[in-house]
């Protein structure tokens, strides 16, 4: 399937906050309560439409444990968007956001759009981090913010799509140089004038088949 743009996303955050579940909910529209933990990186993909244009999201889902940081740092390169996820029922995962943010800013393009996500909003009774705290952190650091539930799917579509809208807006405003792939954006095959061979759309498709 052809697309106007391809955006690379990276999902980051502490272990166990629900990164893989968010990805699965977004690409396959299902929730898997038990699944293998992620070692290294896994990939997902989905097509979305913004402003009448087809946009392919290629999403990198990363391991969250601290020892993996030195490896996951190499994954930031060329990401247009990042979902920085914490778990609203575990304050630790919120407290670590500053470190994640430093890492992200240091290893990515300065234009990368970062969406802060407080996940597990369905577990209201066990809430440990107020919504206002998430909002305040996002405001202070210039991030977009949303609370989501990978379990009920609440706000999951919105989180991925609003990030794409922000990136798309930046392209319209000329902030992103779309000819520089280091920004995490590629022009789709039918739009590409420079190197059509390297950005084939095969293997794409609307729903994920486990990979991008």
């Amino acid at each position, binding site marked *: 399937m052809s697309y106007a743009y391809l955006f690379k996303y990276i999902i980051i955050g502490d272990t166990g906050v629900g990164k893989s579940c968010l990805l699965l909910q977004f690409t396959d529209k299902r929730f898997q309560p*038990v699944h293998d933990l992620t070692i290294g990186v896994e990939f997902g993909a989905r097509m979305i439409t913004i402003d009448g244009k087809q946009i392919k999201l290629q999403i990198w889902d990363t391991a969250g444990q601290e020892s993996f940081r030195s490896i996951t740092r190499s994954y930031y390169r060329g990401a247009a968007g990042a979902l920085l996820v914490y778990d609203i029922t575990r304050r630790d995962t919120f407290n670590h956001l500053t470190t994640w943010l430093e890492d992200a800013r240091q290893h990515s393009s300065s234009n990368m759009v970062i969406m802060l996500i407080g996940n597990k909003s369905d577990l209201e009774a066990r809430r440990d981090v107020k919504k206002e705290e998430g909002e305040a952190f996002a405001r202070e650091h210039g991030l977009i913010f949303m609370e989501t539930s990978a379990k009920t799917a609440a706000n999951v579509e919105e989180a991925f799509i609003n990030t794409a809208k922000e990136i798309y807006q930046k392209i319209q405003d000329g902030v992103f140089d779309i000819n520089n792939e280091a920004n995490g954006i590629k022009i789709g095959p039918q739009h590409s004038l420079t190197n059509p061979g390297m950005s084939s759309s095969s293997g794409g498709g609307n729903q994920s088949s486990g990979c991008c």
Partner: protein
Amino acid sequence: MADIEDFRSSVDPYGFKRTENFDYDCYEQFMSKYLSVLARRRSKWERILGMKANGHVVRSNKIKRYVRKGIPSVFRAQVWMEVSGAEYHRRSNPGLYEAMRIACHDKDLIEVIVTDLDRTFPDNIYFQAETSSEKYAKRQSLFNVLIALGQKNQKVGYCQGLNFIAGLLLIVVKDEEKVFWLMDTLINDLLPDYYSRDMLGVQTDQEVLGELVKERMPDVTRMLDAVGVAWALVSTKWFICLYCDVLPTETVLRLWDCIFYEGSKVLFRVGITLVKHNRAKILNCRSFPEVVNIFKESTNDKFVINCHQFIQAIFSEPGSLSRSHIDELREQCQQRVVDNKHH
């Protein structure tokens, strides 16, 4: 295990649910031939082990050859313990496992291990949460082993990936203390610094694999560079999990036979062989996702299901892999990794 197996069962002999796209025909075809291999290997091992009253296995070229041809599942635990040196450590440190298991009061360590119990082989009948029968009680053992290891190796603590290795060892070896010593031997004697806090060993070995592939198949390296696939993307789990939860279970165990005897060098042989076998496919790719998919599929096809042929292939296809060359590459690559970090 394999000789009393129902080839069409939806659960494999180690309790893993088979994937929906599992190729039963291919597997049955392979097993019908492999059974006679297993029977032959078993009688050979019986003869060797039967001669020793104490059950000791002394390392020798003959044993090494035997190990490469596969250790029968009934002798696996014993031979792994002996040839790796884990049995020596166990006997030199009586009671240490118990002591380590109960000594841990690190709340963070306990919490992170508990979180991962749910996420270790959720599809394996021995690890499912809802079952209460004793047969399924591997979760508690997994917790015990990981806690004791973290307590003994405080520099490592708990590193994700160790859960998968310990989990499979518990299924095969069945004895917590032995699993603890096998893991401890892997971490401290057989693998170079894979599970330390910055995973320098894994980062280094990924680069080494890259160099070894480049020496043999520069066209593949050019392709990976062109579409932006770094070794850290496709091989992190290979090294951290020693191909467990990556390759089919029987193939992993045949590979572990060799790792417990020969150490980490075998991991490169597997990586090179997988790439070599899929070289034409990789060279046909035109994009990042296509290449990533090939790597994913390469760990689950006919070639790797036939574990006997696959293990033969890893010792012939990559060609010579001298210890000194690996040492040299490790030194260079480690320097590169360290330099990059401070860059």
